[in-house]
């Protein structure tokens, strides 16, 4: 392998100058990459880099989690996620983060399988999941996980094994149907070839009858078993009083088969077995492709889902250990460190901290909690270590109850009648009328001929291309969208989105960044580095915003820094005593009234939309800093382009009305459609009411949006969103930023145009077939050529279309 002195030896990214090591052929862009490289090298696995080079892949920078995976050895963990193979072997299914190329397969399987006691390791690249079979007597699962982690693949338990099992069963069933239909189609076509050539060379009647009988027998499994999905679909549609695309397909297949069988028995007329067999095969393949793309999107979302923390730190007799969240019951005490999710509903028993409740309430500014306060599962602990005694777990938590609402809303979601199905309603009527007309036209000439022509009509109009038009266009579009960072979980999402309506956005974390940053500084600039140095001592989000937004000066030396819970910071700078904190805190420390410019600032317009921090020393206010949760830089363009496309935009937020209207005015959203102080239930109710008048879509990131996401015609989950929001959303944006929403809507509209074009093609072929068969000009050979030709047109039109990721 060649080593470029300025590129990282592990991940191939440019090494920052500060990390450059002189006279070393190996360079690393970060600590993570260096550690991983060392581990790979030590185990003699350098071939990884060569393999990766062959595949023309570059690596990715690694962040080592440094986790011990101790919870993987807990009996409760193994009971949840592992399966016992034999007395001595256990197999477990894990999600691996960081799988990105073919060489990963080699590295993962090699690294794990060289461990003693590991019997089998199989990585599924498409799903980023690994199946490990090991002997628990020899090796612990936590050690295997640590080893994988040490080369840059953190593992997560695979949740939802039951769903996976059902899905796999469904996939296998469809694949078997396709296999049978394909074998039948190929062989019946060979037989038909013999019959067609016999038409020109006067085959003896005995042999031609034999060929026809064989064709009938060979076609049977395809028509009776493989195609039964269509009959079931059509029947289910009829019972629900809906005309489904499956109905005309079923009519075509069944009439063709019955008439062909009759003609075989009486020994005259046409058989259509070859056309029917190919038709069944093509339609099944179309369905399979669509299902596969949808699965991929679902798998990818579930990977994000798996990244959500699954462990909690249980305090057991004074010892803290990691256990699966599912094993926590009310009354147990858990420890939550800064940056962790709070796993249960409970009361704080020890510690003070700021808790970010944005996922539940939509409030951008964290809440201070101390012993005795209640906290909710799903929120994030920001600044200090907390001990919490659990009062509610699992479904009893606030989040759990919201999830029940989500499930209910998802169950009730009304299906839309897809365009192809709407057309099929007319299609069935028209075709049946035309068949009747054909019989009437030819009745006086010859009864047998009349029926022959009518059946020919039913078969050539059997909507193969029409049946393929939607699945292919949709699956191609879903695949392209996934490469573009948009994961689409349902097939009718694109069609729903292409219909105009109102798009409701959540505010915190969706339209805005979801974190505070300095928007205004009033006062002398010389205080900036001092404030920054003081705030460096705090983990509070306001402090982090200040640190990020103010200039650094290494010469500032502070002493005696103290933080007051819910107030601010004090420190000595030289001989000066400096106070930085919220107005109440500063006032309490300085005494007396604020000068006019400060009160004006505090009572000024939009005071609610921002957080003000004051800086004081020697009893005098020196500076004031305003912090806001800034609107995402791409939000303005996104909102504008959606409005130009004809959609209405609104905001539904849990935050204060005044904050919401400020953000609304920044984005030029009509004030009548900006709603604040919405509880999760109100959001859901709002969407439900709005949905009665117009198409409604919801874009959100929090648990508080989950109900609304499920209720909306299409729910779109934003990158970094909470787990519940991933479950509820139909679309998940896998990349940061809101601009993808506009791309999604644009892509949906393009896809619908492709579908319309496909349908037009398909219908014109059918029209040609109708004319030919009504005038009696058609024979089975023309039908056999016409049908695949029309399907091919639709296939190429679907895959060549520019839907997602195309530059306009």
């Amino acid at each position: 392998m060649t080593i470029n002195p300025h590129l990282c030896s592990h991940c191939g990214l440019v090494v920052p100058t500060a990390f450059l090591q002189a006279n070393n052929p190996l360079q690393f862009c970060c600590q993570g990459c260096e550690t991983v490289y060392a581990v790979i090298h030590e185990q003699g696995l350098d071939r990884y880099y060569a393999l990766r080079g062959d595949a023309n892949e570059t690596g990715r920078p690694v962040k080592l989690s440094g986790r011990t995976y101790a919870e993987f050895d807990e009996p409760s963990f193994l009971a949840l996620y592992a399966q016992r193979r034999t007395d001595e072997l256990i197999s477990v299914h894990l999600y691996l983060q960081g799988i990105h190329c073919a060489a990963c397969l080699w590295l993962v399987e090699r690294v794990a399988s060289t461990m003693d006691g590991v019997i089998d390791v199989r990585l599924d690249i498409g799903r980023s999941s690994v199946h490990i079979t090991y002997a628990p007597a020899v090796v612990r699962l936590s050690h295997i996980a640590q080893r994988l982690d040490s080369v840059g693949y953190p593992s997560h338990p695979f949740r939802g094994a039951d769903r996976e099992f059902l899905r796999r069963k469904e996939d296998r069933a469809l694949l078997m149907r396709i296999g049978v239909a394909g074998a039948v189609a190929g062989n019946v076509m060979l037989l038909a070839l013999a019959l067609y050539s016999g038409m020109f060379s006067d085959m003896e009647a005995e042999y031609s009858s034999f060929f026809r009988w064989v064709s009938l027998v060979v076609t049977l499994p395809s028509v009776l078993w493989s195609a039964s999905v269509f009959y079931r679909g059509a029947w289910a549609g009829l019972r629900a009083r809906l005309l489904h695309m499956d109905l005309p397909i079923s009519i075509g297949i069944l009439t063709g088969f019955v008439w062909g069988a009759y003609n075989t028995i009486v020994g005259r007329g046409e058989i259509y077995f070859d056309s029917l067999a190919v038709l069944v095969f093509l339609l099944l393949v179309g369905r399979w492709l669509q299902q596969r793309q949808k699965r991929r999107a679902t798998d990818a979302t579930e990977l994000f889902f798996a990244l959500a923390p699954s462990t909690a730190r249980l305090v057991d007799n004074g010892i803290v250990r990691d256990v699966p969240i599912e094993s926590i019951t009310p009354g147990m005490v858990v420890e939550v460190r800064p940056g962790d999710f709070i796993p249960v509903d409970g009361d704080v028993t020890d510690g003070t901290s700021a808790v970010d409740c944005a996922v539940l309430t939509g409030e951008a500014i964290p809440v201070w909690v101390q012993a005795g306060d209640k906290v909710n599962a799903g929120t994030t602990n920001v600044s200090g270590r907390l001990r919490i005694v659990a009062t509610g777990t699992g479904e009893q938590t606030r989040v759990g109850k919201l999830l029940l609402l989500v499930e209910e809303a998802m169950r009730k979601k009304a299906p839309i009648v897809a365009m192809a199905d709407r057309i099929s309603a007319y299609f069935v009527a028209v075709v049946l009328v035309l068949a009747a007309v054909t019989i009437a036209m030819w009745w006086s000439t010859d009864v047998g001929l009349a029926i022959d022509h009518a059946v020919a009509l039913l078969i050539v109009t059997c909507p193969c291309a029409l049946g393929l038009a939607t699945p292919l266009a949709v699956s191609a579009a879903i695949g392209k969208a996934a490469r573009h960072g948009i994961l689409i979980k349902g097939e009718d999402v694109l069609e729903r989105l292409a219909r105009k309506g109102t798009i409701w956005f959540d505010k915190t974390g969706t339209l805005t960044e979801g974190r505070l940053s300095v928007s205004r500084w009033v006062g002398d600039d010389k205080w900036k580095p001092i404030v920054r140095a003081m705030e460096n001592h705090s983990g509070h989000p306001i402090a982090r915003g200040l640190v990020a937004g103010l200039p650094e000066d290494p010469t500032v030396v502070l002493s005696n820094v103290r933080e007051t819970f819910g107030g601010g910071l004090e420190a000595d700078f030289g001989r000066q005593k400096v106070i930085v904190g919220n107005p109440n805190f500063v006032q309490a420390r300085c005494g007396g009234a604020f000068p006019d410019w400060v009160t004006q600032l505090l009572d000024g317009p939009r005071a609610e939309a921002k957080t003000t921090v004051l800086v004081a020393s020697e009893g005098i206010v020196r500076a004031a800093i305003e912090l806001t949760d800034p609107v995402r830089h791409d939000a303005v363009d996104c909102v504008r382009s959606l409005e130009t496309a004809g959609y209405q935009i609104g905001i539904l937020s849990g935050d204060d009305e005044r904050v919401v209207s400020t953000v609304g005015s920044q984005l030029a959203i009509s004030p009548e459609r900006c709603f604040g102080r919405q509880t999760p239930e109100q959001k859901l109710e709002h969407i439900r009411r709005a949905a009665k008048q117009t198409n409604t879509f919801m874009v959100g990131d929090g648990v508080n949006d989950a109900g609304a996401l499920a209720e909306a015609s299409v729910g779109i989950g934003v990158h970094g969103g909470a787990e519940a929001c991933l479950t509820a959303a139909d679309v998940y944006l896998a990349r940061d930023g809101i601009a993808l929403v506009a791309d999604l809507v644009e892509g949906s509209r393009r896809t619908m145009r492709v579908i319309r074009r496909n349908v037009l093609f398909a219908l014109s072929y059918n029209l040609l077939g109708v004319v030919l068969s009504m005038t009696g000009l058609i024979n089975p050979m023309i039908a056999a050529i016409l049908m695949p030709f029309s399907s091919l047109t639709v296939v190429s039109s679907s895959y060549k279309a520019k839907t997602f990721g195309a530059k306009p």
Partner: protein
Amino acid sequence: MSVLYLVLPLAILLVGTAVFAFVWSVKNGQMDDLESPAIRMLYDDEGAKVTKSPSRQTQDGATDGIKAR
């Protein structure tokens, strides 16, 4: 031409065997992952895998509570 009466059923029998083999492989999960085996095969010749057997004694009760499925 009468050989057809023998050859054609034979051919169909052959097809039947192929279909059976396909159905068997799908049922055994061989078609579940269509990507990884294609790549894995490229690395197969990298030295035979060490065969291991779970021979050592149990370290502790880390496996308690696993349901045998």
